[in-house]
């Protein structure tokens, strides 16, 4: 009797098949052109042009070349050959430190302020226009202003992370706080719970899932933005790595960096996914 595959097995198989198809298309697309070397070309000229046989660094890599690069970079992720040449692990760590710095600052501002405007209709109405105007601004648009006023590239990139992580957390916190069930607030009022205790024991747990969703969105945006910010002004980090390899027109290394950005982004997102599950509750 034929064994039926479970849903998980089916999807895994499909994923692997898709990966195989992508690799195949990639391989076919990057097959080297047959090099026609004309007989009358000066051999020295041909040598100076790279011999006409080797593919140059900027051509699109084959899956094999890509695999080799991934292996090389990942097998030595923490080397340090000076300020402009560090291993991928160190670069990612630099980016993560910046992201965490900006993110935590944003959380420190957004959550208390979100509590305030979620609790008070007056504050909400007063601050809402500012939030609405500031929210859609691309965080990178702040970069020149930040550089001009803060006068420090490192602090400016942290500021850019701060400003982009702020809004989703602020809005979600306000939303979460405003939507706490009235019954619970009424119960706490009946029991004459003091305001601080009410905030920490009633409102915070009730709003936590919404707040965490906001944090998850913020972290996603922060990770997107840090890459661009580091490409602009960075002296380290994964964005700087992309720029540095682009400067060498090395697509293999740029692709590798893109892959790493994806993997780290996924890891960050899943951390918040797990945290979100822990604070979730059934009504």
């Amino acid at each position, binding site marked *: 009797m034929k064994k039926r595959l479970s849903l998980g097995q089916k999807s895994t198989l499909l994923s692997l098949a898709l990966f195989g198809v992508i690799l195949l298309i990639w391989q076919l697309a990057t097959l080297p052109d047959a090099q026609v070397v004309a007989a009358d070309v000066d051999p*020295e000229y041909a040598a100076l*042009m790279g011999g006409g046989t080797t593919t140059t660094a900027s051509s699109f890599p084959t899956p094999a070349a890509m695999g080799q690069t991934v292996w090389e970079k990942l097998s030595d992720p923490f080397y340090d050959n*000076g300020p402009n040449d560090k291993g991928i692990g160190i670069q990612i760590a630099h980016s993560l430190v910046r992201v965490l710095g900006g993110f935590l600052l944003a959380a420190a501002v957004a959550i208390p302020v979100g509590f305030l405007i979620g609790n008070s209709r007056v504050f909400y109405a007063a601050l809402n226009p500012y939030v609405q105007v500031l929210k859609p601004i691309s965080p990178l648009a702040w970069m020149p202003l930040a550089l001009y006023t803060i*006068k*420090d590239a490192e602090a400016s990139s942290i500021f850019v992370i701060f400003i982009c992580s702020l809004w989703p957390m602020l809005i979600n916190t306000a939303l979460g706080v405003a939507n706490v069930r009235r019954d619970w607030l009424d119960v706490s009022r009946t029991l004459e719970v003091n305001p601080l205790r009410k905030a920490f024991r009633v409102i915070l747990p009730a709003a936590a899932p919404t707040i965490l969703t906001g944090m998850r969105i913020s972290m996603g945006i922060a990770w997107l933005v840090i890459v661009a910010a580091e490409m602009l002004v960075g002296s380290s980090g994964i964005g700087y790595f992309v720029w540095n390899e682009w400067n060498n*027109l090395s697509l293999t290394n740029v692709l590798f960096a893109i892959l790493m950005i994806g993997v780290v982004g996924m890891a960050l997102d899943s951390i918040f996914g797990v945290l979100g599950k822990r604070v979730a509750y059934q009504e």
Partner: protein
Amino acid sequence: MSGFDNPFDPDTQLHRAGCSCGRHHSQADHDADMKNEDARVSRVVESAVMRGLFPDDQMRRNFLRAVGAGTAMAAISTLFPMGAAKALAADRGKLEKTDLKIGFVPITCATPIIMAGPMGFYEREGLNVSLQKTAGWAVVRDKVQNKEYDASHLLSPMPLAMSLGLGSAKQAVDVATIQNINGQAITLHIKHKDKMNPKDWKGMKFGLPFDYSIHNLLLRYFLAEHGLDPDKDVELRNMPPPDMVANLRAGNIDGFLGPEPFNQRAVYEGFAFVHTLSRDLWDGHPCCAFGVKEGFYKEFPNTYAALFRAIASATDYAHKPENRKEIIEAIAPANYLNQPIPVLEQVMTGRFADGLGKVRNVPDRVDFDPFPWQSMAVWILTQLKRWNYIKGDINYQAVAEEVFRATDARKRMAEIGLTAPKSSYMKHTIMGKVFDPAKPAEYLNSFAIKRT
């Protein structure tokens, strides 16, 4: 052996440790007597000279006993320029700041700044330099203004523009030395190989690194000399060098006047050719400079002196063709230029494939010369004025002399044995036309195409 001992005292033992003059209980007491910095430096130099002349200490002491210290000093002074040696040593006082951050943009123009790191030029001067690769000229400008960088690689028009407040906040920046001369090129897409005459370039799009770059000024000059108005007949776009190569491949631009190694890189990738080397426009034109924010040399005079010596010696070293091979090895790694060696070799040796099937041999395709000619600054200012970057009147010489520290460079170069020109002004010939720095206004008026 201490440098504080009087080598003209026959009782001093130069080749032995401890207080040797006998007048002090300990070396510390002895040193306390020699607080005077000048005296100390003199003693250090004299001791060094005497040690050099008399490798055997006994011989020196016998000599001094026989002729007396005064006679010996006079006799040696006639042979050896003791005064000059003392002056030189006095300049090498204590460094006010040893940890420096220096910015560079990864192009061969920055060769002296970069190589001075791995090849030990900074270290020799007691400097601990962190070389910071930077993503673009605007970022370099901001980081110099923010004092994030103590000194930096700059395009030679940038310090003039920054000092005048063009395109940024007004912030005086000093040019300590020029880095490279020549070493740029006009590169076109291979599809334009039949358009060798620039008169046919109407409607084309060109990439340039920055508004305040010699590239912009030279390309505008070149186009205008061929009857094209750079603001109306062609499109000029600012972009970083790797984008020039990528955009040229994609056909978004038709050519660029860019820094090396990106011209050769485009040729190496097989879709471009070198149309004109910048040395054929103006042989010996300045390209990049080494600059510090105004006040740096006043605040840190000894550090500035050490930095100048390191950069000027490195520039001189890079000037010599026989050293180029070694330099390429030093600057090619990922920490610095991050470029393939075959491309750098073609740039630095001047024996290169032109992209049209010929091997060309131009040894001075790239060259290095530290002296910051003020006449070059005047030329740059006339062109900035010509294309309306500078609005209003300007005293060309005054600005040039304020920003390009030629007098200071001459003095410092002489101290380390480099020959510097006697004058800070000279006539330059650009595309066959002579520029007289004494008559900038007349020069500017002589152009048919201009924005003034």
